[in-house]
């Protein structure tokens, strides 16, 4: 089963320590080697993006940044056997932020992707 993980958060004043990228690469490497991480990438701040909205029959385009308090930081696509496995990988990812970048707060939303097993 495929799970999309969307990490969002609010960065503290301090820049991310280099050790964070090291740790992210290491954990991502482990997940890739275990054959479960299919795809992942970081996302630029929403200032670099835009939003296309349909409301009341009208299509409007708004440039970023979006006004949400948390910015989307990265996405990852996993191939796993259960939601619990997805939770475990997401928890590892979030704990690594806690341990290395004090002050960072955020969340990972786990969404199951439709596939042959569930009518997709």
């Amino acid at each position, binding site marked *: 089963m495929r799970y999309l993980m969307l990490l969002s958060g609010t960065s503290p004043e301090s820049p991310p320590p280099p050790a964070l990228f090291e740790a992210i690469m290491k954990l991502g490497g482990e997940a*890739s080697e*275990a*054959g479960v991480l299919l795809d992942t990438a970081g996302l630029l701040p929403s200032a670099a993006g835009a939003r296309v909205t349909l409301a009341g029959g009208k299509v409007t385009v708004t440039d970023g940044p979006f006004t949400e308090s948390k910015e989307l930081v990265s996405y990852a696509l996993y191939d796993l056997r*259960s939601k619990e496995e997805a939770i475990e990988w997401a928890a590892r990812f979030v704990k690594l932020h806690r341990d290395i970048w004090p002050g960072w707060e955020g969340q990972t939303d786990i969404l199951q992707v439709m596939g042959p097993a569930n009518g997709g």
Partner: protein
Amino acid sequence: MDSHEATRSAIEAVWRIESPRLIAGLARITGDVGVAEELAQDALVIALEQWPVRGVPDGPGAWLMATAKHRAIDLVRRRARYDQKLREIGRDMEAQAQAPGEPDVDKMDDHIGDDLLRLIFIACHPILSTEARAALTLRLIGGLTTHEIARAFLAGEPAIAQRIVRAKRALAEAKVPFEIPAPGELAGRLGSVLEVIYLVFNEGYSATSGEDWIRPELCAEALRLGRLLAGLMPRQVEVHGLVALMELQASRIGARTGPAGEPVLLTDQDRRRWDRLLIRRGLAALARAERLDGAPGRYAVQAEIAACHARAASVEDTDWERIAALYVVLAHLTPSPVVELNRAVAVGMAFGPGKGLEIADALTGEAVLAGYAQLPAVRGDLLARLGRLGEARAEFTRAAALTGNERERALFRARAAECGPGDPDRADR
């Protein structure tokens, strides 16, 4: 889900992620895969007792590893004391020479990659039957329960449990060393590993029995095993070849069945339903295989064939001539009537059904294909395209009688019906 059940599910998830590494590390210490698995299971049992009460530890993987290490130390110490006693009562003077030292457990997780690879080679050891290798691999590397393996192979749980126990005993009795095979035997041993992974994949991809045409979760399991192996053996052409083949074949899973679960053949598939991510991953794996030194083997060549389909926007756009040529290469690597039958299909597409039929007709005397539903199915298709509908109908009817898969039977019957009404006396020829 109540909190206990949630904790239990969380433990099972951690177990699945960690158990291959645990068992691999423990097997290096104890030298016995069966003992290693028992020790790892002990750690799991302790977790199942403690975590629902005390909460899941912050680093559950490390906790399991530490607990398993303690069990290993206890075991080795017990064995040492036992040997000591033997020496003290003077019954076995030779035991002294073999007395084990204190295990260096702190180094247990320094060699996880190597240990995992050793574990894979042991689980797929050629002294075991292919079925035993597959069951043991799913158990030790895939972290599947006996119940899940039994479901995967549509077998009874006791039969699978016994298969695994016997396999572990056979490995212990043969004193199979916990080692990566020497360079001289590596190719053969690797072939045994790849065979097992592809068997698991195919069991899911075209279930040979039962009502489901595809069991995607089994394909996913084989894919994870293949990707794991590719990470551990990045210089082996055929490992990347097999991963490429499986990614590319799996990319078609969503298009291979219709709304009612009926099979849809490659030529009839809606290619918009092919999984672009898996195609991209498959083509990337194939490119990795091509960049390495070493001739492509059976898996890389089959992946090349699958890539021809993946790159084509339609059946008409497919480079059938290249596929036909690749089947010649494949037939050279692994001569078999089944490969020849596939070549007949490709030649039929590249150079016309008459040319394909010549190859297929030459196979009708092959004993190995006597009960093989695909032979009459392919002949039926080629005959139908030549307008020889009566003969085509008879072939499809025969294919329907031969297949053990219900979904496939319905497909062949439908194709027979498409050939128009026939002489009822000849229907079951």
